Every structure is written in structure tokens, then in C-alpha cells.
């Protein structure tokens, strides 16, 4: 059972793009350790001979014809919830920071 450190939680928060506060990081570090301790029992029974299941109902790949049907969103609908738009485009802030 690897110990979970505050640095690790801060790194995970960065990967998950959540600007956690120092207080949240401290709180989550404790909780995450407790939760991982409770769930690591899966290792006891997950022996190499057991195949993993990703999906409960076995299915083959599902394909459809590559044609645009009439039930797709219009540009207006697709943009209707955008926090900021410019014509038919979503507006975002700079991709690169000054230091980059």
C-alpha cells in the first residue's frame, strides 16, 4: 500500500485540472489514503487467472453508416450553451502562457 502524499494529490489535481486549495489538498490526502486502504482488498482475489471485465453485457463493435442524418445538432444549438462565442466558434483564452 503506497502512502499518498500531499505532493501526489497536488499532482493528481493538476492532471484532473482542478485548482484545489491547500486546505482541500490536505483534507483529500487523508481521505484518499483511507479510501485506498479500504479498496485495496481487490488485490487479494484478482489473481492472474481471472480475466478482467470492462463491460457487463458482452457486445461486438457497433457500427453505423458514415452518413450525416437529420438528428444532429445545428451550429446554433451546439453553441447555445457556450460561455463565450464568436460567430459559429467557441472562444477560449490563450492556449500558451507568457512563460511558454
Amino acid at each position, binding site marked *: 500500500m*503506497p502512502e*499518498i502524499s500531499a505532493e*501526489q*494529490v497536488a499532482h*493528481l*489535481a*493538476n*492532471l*484532473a*485540472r*482542478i*485548482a*484545489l*486549495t491547500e486546505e*482541500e489538498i490536505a483534507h*483529500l490526502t487523508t*481521505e*484518499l489514503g*483511507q*479510501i*485506498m486502504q*479500504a*479498496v*485495496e*482488498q*481487490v*488485490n*487479494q*482475489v*484478482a*489473481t492472474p487467472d*481471472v*480475466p*478482467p*471485465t*470492462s*463491460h*457487463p*453485457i458482452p*457486445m461486438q463493435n*457497433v457500427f*453505423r453508416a458514415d452518413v450525416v442524418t437529420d438528428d444532429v*445538432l445545428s451550429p446554433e*444549438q*451546439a453553441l*447555445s*450553451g*457556450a*460561455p*463565450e462565442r464568436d460567430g459559429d466558434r*467557441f472562444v*477560449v*483564452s*490563450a*492556449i*500558451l*502562457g507568457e512563460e511558454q
Partner: protein
Amino acid sequence: MSHSDELIRLSAAELARRLGRGEVSSVEATQAHLDRIAAVDGAVHAFLHVNAEGALRAAAEVDRARAAGESLGELAGVPIAIKDVLVTEGMPSTSGSKILEGWIPPYDATPVRKVREAGLVPLGKTNMDEFAMGSSTEHSAYGPTHNPWDLDRIPGGSGGGSAASVAAFEAPLALGSDTGGSIRQPAHVTGTVGVKPTYGAVSRYGSIALASSLDQIGPVTRTVLDAALLQDVIAGHDPHDSTSIAEPWPSMAEAVRRADVQGLRIGVVKELDTDGFQAGVRQRFHESLELLERNGAEIVEVEAPNFEHAIAAYYLILPAEASSNLAKFDSVRFGLRVTPQGGGTVEQVMAASREAGFGPEVKRRIILGTYALSAGYYDAYYGSAQKVRTLVQRDFDQAFAKVDVLATPTAPTTAFKLGEKLDDPLAMYLNDIATIPANLAGVPGISLPAGLAPEDGLPVGIQFLAPARQDARLYNVGGALERLLEAEWGGPLIAKAPDLSTHELTATEEGAL
């Protein structure tokens, strides 16, 4: 009892019958439910949004179509509440999160489209734990829902709003979603009926995804027949959901109407019949089984040794899938955008938006999922959890080789007090011990009222599970047990729920409105 008070207490099936015979109009029935919502929802808080105008318009359209002799679905004109996890055109859809506050989706989820096409009347959107993460609705960003049986207690979760809305007679029907018990556990604590259909029976298109391999949409009602009628409306193949099962379904309503347990083999899961369950929960469970046995069912004990690892596997698989699904909330295409002081890059805006928009349980699970999926830990956690999933499926296969359905108490305890488990995530997660195995294996489950626990007078549910695609077996055993129990009780259990009209004033006085 006033006419309006009588209308809200009818089952959906009975209301539909009266609508069909012209004894009542859909506008009258809809108005009666809107009046009830206005009277009691300040205290219950089952709804996040009530669409009175849209509901009355839809009701008037059904009345017009009926008067014109048009062919209508069996439930046409019956009001329905919709869990906020389902996107709805013209109604805000937040999934209980601030990050989606005020968002009005440009399309209907498939189950919503189907209920509209069948002539049902959407009343509004029901409260839930944020992104369906929780067992009490206390993780809703908009405040908790209160259990109509005792307003100081939780209504279950994540679909506490849907369950409370039917328990409080604010709607005869509701839609829910069940990822680890979010339909069945609220049914258990509110004395109502909830069904998680087979994975893939109902389309997930337009359901704001929590864990895609576990989520399933299903009915929330006061009677087993009503749940069956609603499942018959929402089930079926949908090309928009590639995990949707492309096979026809038999009528679930027929299964209820023909319900008979003579010769039915019912397996009691030994691992879920222990001292870990509250005494009154176990007592009502065993009384129900004895009643079924006296009426021709055969009760046998079965073992499911891997169920004890189900919660652990679930709390690795769910956060892993959730952390991926919730990446879509990026402040670009829809939802909240928060720009840090002095501006920032798109990634900084994203991080600030997600920090402000997500609640503590959502952050906890995203971080947990990100950890379980990270390089070096993937095999030990996510990979191992997927293996446990195989073992749980094997337990089900072995059990169903011996019996037709399985029976368990739905949840370990009756409704607990609001706030009681809020600071202890692990204690909260244990609420779903009996419901999670079905989600891991994709099999269907039902919870229906089994009585009141003698020690606290609160509702207790019994759960039945069936093999994948055999949802009709749940409706058979559920319909039969409901009939037998109601004959003993002299009516439905929900008739024993306290009269909420007295609570309205109290809530107002305390400023809860």
C-alpha cells in the same frame, strides 16, 4: 378528501384508466400535482425545477388529442417527474451541480423523448446528489431533499428527489438513474418502488454520464405495475447508444398482471443476510420470504462469496470512469466558466472553473479515479477491480443456475438522519452494499416496500435480482409480493406515510422555504 387530493393519490395505472374513460382530464390531473408541489415541496425539496406552464400545455395537448379520437399510449396524460441527470429540451439540466447551473440542453435524452412521445406530462426536474455521486442527496449543490416519512431524514440517493416526489404524491411516476443503487436504495428508504433494468435495456443517450459501464435509467413509482408500465415506455433499442440492447422486450406490465410465484425458486444471498443489517430490515425481509413460500415459492440459500469485494471494486471502477466522463466540463462548450484574476491560459481557466463548479464529493472521486488510472497503479487498482467484476458475474451465474431470482434486503438500514454520515465517505459508501453487485454484473434489480421497521417505524424495502434480460421475472415476483403484502396490510404501505400538509407551515415558519 377533495377531488384534487384524491387524484394525486391514484396510481399511474388507475389515473390512466380514468383519463382514458374521460372521467378526468390531463389538465386537471396535472394541475392537482402542481398544486401539491406548491403545497409541500418547500418542505420536501424534491424538485430543482418545476415547469408548470410547459406541463399544462403538454396536458392540454393530450386532452385535445384524446377528444379528437387520436390513438394514445396507455399512460398518455399522466404526469411524470424527471431526474436532473437526464437532459431535457426547454428545462434546465444540472445533474445537481453548480457547474451546469442554468444550462438548457439543446436536445432530449432518449428516455425523455420516449415519455413525451407516449403522452406523459413532464412536471419538472428532480434533485439528486451532484452527478449522482451519493446515497443521500446531501451532495446536491442545491441543498438536500427531505424524506417525506420524516423530514429530518435522508430520502436516499442519488435519486432522492425522484423517490421523494412519488412518496410525497407530487408525481405518480418519476425517472431515475442507477449506477450503484441510486434508484433502488431511495425506494427502500421512502417506501416506494424502484427498478434498475438490465444494463442496455434503456438508452443512456442524454443521461449525463457518471460511470458509463454501470449507469442505467429506470422507473421510480409507488406500485410495481406502474414501474412496469413505465419500463415498457422507456425500454428498447436506441442507435444513439452503442451499448443499447438490440432485442425486443416482452411486456413488463403483462408480467405483473399475470404474477404468480407458484414453483418460483428464490435464492437468498447468504452474504447479504447478516448482522450487518438492521434488525427490522432483516425481520421484514424474512417475513416477505415466508409469505412468498406460503404461496408456492421455494426459498433456498445461495452463496456469493465475491460480493464482499464488490464495494471495493465499485469504488475503483466508478471514480475511474467518472474522472474520464467529467473531463467534458472544460468551461469551453457549455457550463460554468471562471477566469482567474488577471486572466490565464485555457488550462488555468479550466482548473479555476472546475474548482468553483464541483462539490467536495465530485472532487474526491475525480482525484481517486485519476489516481486509480495513473501509470504504475493501473494494474493494481483498476485492472484488479475489473477482475473482481468477473468474479461477481460468476457468482451470479452460479446462483442463477440454481434459482430463478435472488432476494436481499435492499440496504442495510432505514433512512438515517440528514448530516449523520456526511463526514464519513466510507460509511456512506456502505449503504450500497446490496445494490452494487447488480451494476457490476449488468443484471436487473427491483426494490419494493416490505413494511415498516418495528424499531423506528420507517420503510424497509426488499430487493430481487434476475439474470440479464430477465427483467420480467422481477415484475412477476414483485407484483406477486406486493399483492400479498397489501392484502395483509389492507392497502399500500405508502398510505401510512405522514400527512405532509401539516409540515408546510412548520417549514415556512422555520424559513426552510
